[in-house]
């Protein structure tokens, strides 16, 4: 094992030593405020001057954290919480909204592959990230569906200097985790590009030693991303980018005391072709074509080698998106208009037929500066879809600079999330537990047939005549920024009200299926409401050029207003049973804690220190999450103050890096330094993860 590691490092060093180039090793200091920010407006803005709440994680910050995957770096940001999904993936909560409601983009185009609605952030390696732009608040006015909580745009590196340069790095850490990165940049006049490759492998981890199943099974993945740019002229530039991703993971399951083994595989391709044309000093256009395919399959075999049909599934999703954008400079304002279409297909297990989504959209945005101190951003997008009703998503944001140091901003926007393929077309039966789930568009025909065969009894009053509506939200933000000298602070009050949340409900009961845990047939409907609101605040103090600290805090309330009404009106949600005395009592509306898996308080503290004489980088991050409820224990189906909570916890991440001999950078550290685990309740924290990394820049 050790020899393999040394061989790997040795080979890569030998391969690239031929391209040695003089390069001054800069110490790595995060400077996010000066960065260009494009995600909020699709144009070049500056984070400092945005009328919307946003954040940037630049490559220096990512480098100093010494992490591997997108999920790890996002988990350290104020107001973002990573939560475990099925099968060990990691989803993201933003402003208290579920991981299905944040749009994830890579270089401005969306990633697909949400087989259960959520997006697994550990799919993305951080090896070639230039910066991560985060926009909080409903952004459907530019990006359409899923941009309900916000948008995360991962911008990958592009070559800056002439000639050939690049870097190679290898990182080894706990749980037999290997991460190997290689980047080669080339630039010769009008022709430039970068090729990036990453290979990541880990043995997974096991929090529960009682069974033979691991919490996260071993997996490895490879990412290859070549990007090529060609500047025909100063006014006509071509960008092509292809990203290939492959992941293989062990998959084991124990069903009815039989131990099945198998595997899962993911194959993804993202291809983007874009032409930027500057027509005049006032007008420029972008022509973009994007295609992506995400496929996964998994299989299970019994000990004799026979395939277990129920555990073997596949998923194959395609998205094709052409989009045209135009930006017109009108002096004090910039008018952006875009038009495009989405052609999306999905073929998967539990779908009768190939599902096709076809939608067209048009959006417009006016970024207006009537005075030096005032910035107004107004926009709207119209989406026309073949399966659900059309959506109009407006947005308005205003920023006013009271003084050079102090500014106020407010925004209001509409967001939506379309019913996904699964909610419309699913046909899934869980034979072991007994229930069936039917998508909304296929439920009527399947239920009619089952009723004719005498298999079910339908619930009265339920039909599928009106199309399922998209989940929609209105989002308000109000914030202030203050920056003077070494100190900057910002605060943002946010409020989201989401309606028509799609939830499951019983539509029929199976006859002659008594004794099973659950003989219900479920479908989907628009039913729930959620309100999330709170305050987010960040402060940065730059003590010296070599020493800075940032602190962040979020206060969050996430509740279902229907539940509050129910408690007020004496309904079932307002009665709990004390499990010790078996007495039932009524609770007050103030006893309702809120949605599961949301912490009231989250906070972080980050310290960046570089030892001046040796240029050693020390980076310390402490992240705190307060208690949260997971399951109702006292019989009213909601999380209230009398339920059991997962205790709040703190994670400490430390890394130390040292530039060596101009071209090398050595780094070592530990994430979760104090080895916090909560095996029973927190499945995405494996314990202390120490690591060591070597990077060679050429």
């Amino acid at each position: 094992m050790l020899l393999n590691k040394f061989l790997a490092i040795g080979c890569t060093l030998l391969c690239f030593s031929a391209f040695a180039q003089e390069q001054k090793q800069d110490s790595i200091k995060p400077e996010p405020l000066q960065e260009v920010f494009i995600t909020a407006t699709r144009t070049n803005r500056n984070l400092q001057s945005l009328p919307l709440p946003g954040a940037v994680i630049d490559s220096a910050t990512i480098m100093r954290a010494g992490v591997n995957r997108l999920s790890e770096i996002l988990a350290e940001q104020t107001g973002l919480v990573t939560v475990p999904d099925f099968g060990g993936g990691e989803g993201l909560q933003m402003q208290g909204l579920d991981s299905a409601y944040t749009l994830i983009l890579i270089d401005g185009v969306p990633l697909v592959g949400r087989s259960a609605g959520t997006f697994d952030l550990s799919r993305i390696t951080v090896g070639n990230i230039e910066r991560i732009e985060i926009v909080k608040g409903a952004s459907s006015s530019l990006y359409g569906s899923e941009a309900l909580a916000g948008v995360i745009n991962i911008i990958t590196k592009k070559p800056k200097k002439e000639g050939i340069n690049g870097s190679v790095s290898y990182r080894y850490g706990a749980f037999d985790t290997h991460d190997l990165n290689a980047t080669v940049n080339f630039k010769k006049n009008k022709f430039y590009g970068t090729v990036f490759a990453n290979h990541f492998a880990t043995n997974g981890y096991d929090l529960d030693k009682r069974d033979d199943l691991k919490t996260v099974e071993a997996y490895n993945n490879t990412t290859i991303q070549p990007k090529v740019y060609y500047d025909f002229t100063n006014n006509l530039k071509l960008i092509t980018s292809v990203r290939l991703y492959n992941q293989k993971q062990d998959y084991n399951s124990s069903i009815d005391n039989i131990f099945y083994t198998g595997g899962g595989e993911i194959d993804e391709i993202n291809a983007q072709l874009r032409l930027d044309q500057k027509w005049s000093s006032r007008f420029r256009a972008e022509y973009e074509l994007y295609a992506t395919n995400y496929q996964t399959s998994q299989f299970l075999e019994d000990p004799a080698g026979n395939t277990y049909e129920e555990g073997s599934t596949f998923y194959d999703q395609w998205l094709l998106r052409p989009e045209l954008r135009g930006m017109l400079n009108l002096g004090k304002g910039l008018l952006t208009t875009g038009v495009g279409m989405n052609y999306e297909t999905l073929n998967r297990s539990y779908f009768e037929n190939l599902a096709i989504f076809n939608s067209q959209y048009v959006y417009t945005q006016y970024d207006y500066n009537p005075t030096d101190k005032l910035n107004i951003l107004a926009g709207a997008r119209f989406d026309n879809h073949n399966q659900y009703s059309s959506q109009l998503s407006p947005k308005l944001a205003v920023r006013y600079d009271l003084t050079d140091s102090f500014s106020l901003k407010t925004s209001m926007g509409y967001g939506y999330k379309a019913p996904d393929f699964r909610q419309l077309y699913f046909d899934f039966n869980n034979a072991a537990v007994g229930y069936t789930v039917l998508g909304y568009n296929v439920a009527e025909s399947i239920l009619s047939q089952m009723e004719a065969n005498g298999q079910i009894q339908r619930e009265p009053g339920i039909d599928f005549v009106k199309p399922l509506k998209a989940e929609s939200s209105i989002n308000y933000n109000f914030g202030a920024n203050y920056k003077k000298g070494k100190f900057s602070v910002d605060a943002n009050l946010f409020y989201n009200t989401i309606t028509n949340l799609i939830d499951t409900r019983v539509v029929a009961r199976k006859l002659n299926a008594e004794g099973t845990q659950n003989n219900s047939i479920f479908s989907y409907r628009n039913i729930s409401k959620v309100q999330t609101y709170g305050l987010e605040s960040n402060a940065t103090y730059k003590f010296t050029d070599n020493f800075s600290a940032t602190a962040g805090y979020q206060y969050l309330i996430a509740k279902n207003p229907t539940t509050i009404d129910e408690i007020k009106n004496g309904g079932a949600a307002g009665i709990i049973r004390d499990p010790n005395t078996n007495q039932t009592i009524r609770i007050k509306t103030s006893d309702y804690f809120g949605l599961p898996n949301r912490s009231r308080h989250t906070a972080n503290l980050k310290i960046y220190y570089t030892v001046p004489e040796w240029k050693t980088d020390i980076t310390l991050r402490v992240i705190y999450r307060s208690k949260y409820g997971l399951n109702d224990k006292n019989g009213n189906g909601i999380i209230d103050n009398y339920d059991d909570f997962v205790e709040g916890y703190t994670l400490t991440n430390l890394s130390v890096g040292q530039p060596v001999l101009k071209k090398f950078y050595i780094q070592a550290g530990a994430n979760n330094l104090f080895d916090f685990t909560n095996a029973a309740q927190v499945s995405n924290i494996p314990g202390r993860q120490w690591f060591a990394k070597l990077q060679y820049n050429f």
Partner: protein
Amino acid sequence: MNKYFITAFLALSSLVFTSCGNDDDNTLNQQPVSVETQTFSNLFANQTGGQGEAPGGTYTKFSFSQNAVVTGDDWDVAFRGTTILVNGGAPLATDEPARTGLGAVAILSGVLFNEVGAIPAASMFVQDSASAYAIPTGSGNGWYSYNSETHIITAMAGKVFVVKTHDGKYAKMEILSYYKDAPANPTQETETRYYKFNFAYQPDGTTF
């Protein structure tokens, strides 16, 4: 002699009638039977199969008036696994005990057990039928909810079952736990199918 006999007879009879009258008055003025809450623990509702196989086994019958598990036809409710039957209506499956009585049930939600005083209106009472049980099966439908992540069955709070017994009397019942000895924190390993419930039996058809 006859005169004395008649007088004695009249006196005796008047005494009898007076006391009878008084007895009648006492019966009319008698207080209703006071209803106390009783708790029955660890009623074992054994079931074979389930989880994909056809369920089987004998239902455990219970009588409110006797506060005991019974084996005859004088049962009010019967338990097997998570299914609860009432002794009225018609059977749904062939392995159920025959319905020999007037049993039915009205399901109240969002009420405290102690608050249930009046007997619900007759239209609220449902009997078992060949197509559906009066107490619906399945998580969230009847008396329990099943958490598919923790695999714990929790009796829903605020649900009170007003049961019409096999002989037309009323009892209110509240299920407390499905686990043996009703631990405060059951786990996946705790033995199940042991019912603990509160009930109050009202034989004279007035309020609880």
